[in-house]
């Protein structure tokens, strides 16, 4: 099977007062061309760190300690020289974030920000870049695109800003779009528009999408496969429809019940406790203190990832013993 992106044994830690804190541990995954892979998990589970380490986007100032392998079309990207990375970031990998204000510059016009990558990466002249910018704004369904070019980010609504950011990410026709919580800050009616836009563009442009979200509903509606992360590790992976109907891992199961807002007699199903911070992760399975099915052996070692169904893998030693009642 051809793979666009292959990540193996990825570990990312951040140096802190208590030594290097592991944000992502031993993560493996791959994305095929044209596929949507979702990474889902609660805050602090390492989703953004995992995605950011891919095109070498992790800020150097936090001095991350990164090991493992990240291959884009077979080419190793970890430890790639900055100059080479910068050249590839635009054309091959586009990124959009939760908060457009972090990547849109408030002092430059929308037009200038879309045209810049078109000129530096694609070598278009000013007129061609502007024409392409208008096309891109039309593609992301921004109304009155010609007028928008002269506007500033603060002139636009949250949904419009998110569309402009998508237009910039798409400027150089990337083969992979990394979308880190692209709709978390938006209202549901606008979220639905933006998700539909991303899915539509993906199909028409044949681009792969790595979608990071904490919302299993978003996963169901947009992704082909899903990775569930907990406390820096992958705990389950597989086809979306399979994972969200027959989860193997007790954490996925709990997350699913919480997301479905399942309840009885006015009470919702809870997962007790909280996600442990990196410096307080228990030995063995990190979910053990919150898990209703835990046994003594769960504390002994980090459970290995193994197959639990068609295309499905999970890191739980009790995964095959059937679903809890």
């Amino acid at each position, binding site marked *: 099977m051809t793979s666009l992106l292959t990540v193996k044994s990825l570990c990312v830690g951040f140096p802190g007062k208590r030594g290097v804190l592991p944000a992502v541990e031993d993560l493996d995954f791959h994305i095929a061309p044209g596929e949507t892979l979702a990474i889902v998990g609660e805050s602090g589970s390492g989703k953004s760190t995992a995605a950011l380490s891919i095109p070498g986007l992790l800020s150097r100032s936090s001095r991350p300690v990164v090991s493992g392998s990240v291959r884009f079309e077979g080419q190793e990207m970890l430890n790639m020289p900055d100059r080479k990375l910068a050249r590839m970031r635009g054309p091959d990998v586009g990124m959009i974030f939760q908060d457009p204000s972090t990547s849109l510059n408030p002092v430059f016009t929308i037009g200038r920000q879309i045209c810049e990558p078109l000129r530096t990466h694609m070598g278009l002249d000013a007129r061609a870049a502007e024409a392409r910018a208008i096309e891109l704004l039309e593609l992301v369904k921004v109304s009155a695109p010609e007028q928008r070019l002269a506007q500033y980010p603060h002139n636009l609504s949250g949904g419009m800003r998110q569309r402009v950011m998508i237009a910039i990410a798409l400027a150089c026709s990337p083969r992979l779009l990394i979308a880190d919580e692209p709709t978390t800050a938006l209202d549901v009616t606008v979220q639905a528009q933006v998700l539909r836009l991303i899915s539509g563009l993906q199909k028409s442009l044949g681009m792969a999408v790595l979608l990071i979200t904490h919302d299993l509903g978003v996963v169901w509606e947009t992704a082909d496969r899903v990775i569930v992360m907990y406390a820096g590790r992958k705990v389950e992976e597989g086809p979306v429809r399979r994972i969200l109907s027959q989860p193997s891992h007790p954490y996925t199961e709990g997350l699913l019940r*919480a997301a479905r807002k399942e309840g009885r007699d006015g009470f919702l199903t809870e997962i007790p406790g909280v996600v442990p911070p990196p410096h307080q992760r228990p030995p063995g399975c990190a979910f053990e203190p919150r898990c209703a099915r835990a046994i003594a052996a769960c504390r002994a070692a980090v459970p290995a990832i193994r197959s639990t169904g068609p295309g499905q893998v999970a890191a739980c030693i009790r995964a095959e013993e059937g679903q809890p009642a």
Partner: protein
Amino acid sequence: MTLLKVHKLVRHFPVSRGFGSSAIVRAVDGVDLEIAPGETLAIVGESGCGKSSLARCVAGLDTATSGKVEVEGTDSADMLTADPMRFRRSIQMVFQDPYSSVNPRRRIGEIIGDGLRLHKLVPRAQRAERVRELLEQVGLAADYADRYPHELSGGQRQRVSIARALAVNPRLIVCDEPVSALDVSVQAQVMNLLVRLQRDHGVAYLFISHDLALVRHIAHKVAVMYLGQVVESGDAAIFDQGFLHPYAQSLFDAAPRIGRPEGEEVELLEGDVPSPISPPSGCRFHTRCPQTIDRCKVEAPDLRPVAGRDVRCHRAEEMLARMMPPQAEAAFGTG
């Protein structure tokens, strides 16, 4: 008897638009509500529709431009002048971001104990004991009294603000998006805590959220807002029967849903919410409504009773007829 009655509440904010010109933000534009003791009324709507402005007027943290709020039959503006302490004992508020509403340099015990001290509810010697009891009621160990807010997780801080509100035995707690900033597994914990406290103490909630699926579990009544007005309201049975107002329907359909069949066509709203400075003519929703007819553009619909709830739409009867006719008839007994 009614615990809270909100009558034609209006909150307009004058804002400057530069060059000496000014405008008015119609944040809340004529809202009526009623809450009975021990009941939960959920207010649902997207950001900017006026939920927080309404909440602050109800909780006595802001003054309405016009209209009236009555607490147990007494005008709240009068009560706030004559006996502000009594008002604060009746109505408390819990915010989305508990961190912004507490002093980070004070211990949890002092934060929770404030109300007890101000309202002289328990003798000083028993205050620590009562704080411990409150902590326990919200599911926190007694030793949290000595900690500082930054040592707590988001969910724990929200438990502290609930304990602080509960300290004065209020009749009503206004909860403004209390779980929106929390992870989904922790959301359920806090929601369940609120339900348990209601069953034990009979406290009523005005519960504000943008998540219809979430409020479905705790609401006895629900009101959906758009641009400062209620567009549909009624008791919780409408969650099962289905909403009639096109906006309420869109809000419900737009939320991503696990298990939605592939290929199910969901009609999405176009564009963004218009500015509350110059809301559209006629029906405020007509610029985005999939059901708009000419009448909607010129004539503002009233909030009026249709099929056992209140709906602000000229086409409510047609929406009802279209809603799976046999079930609708069974549910409402209409012919």
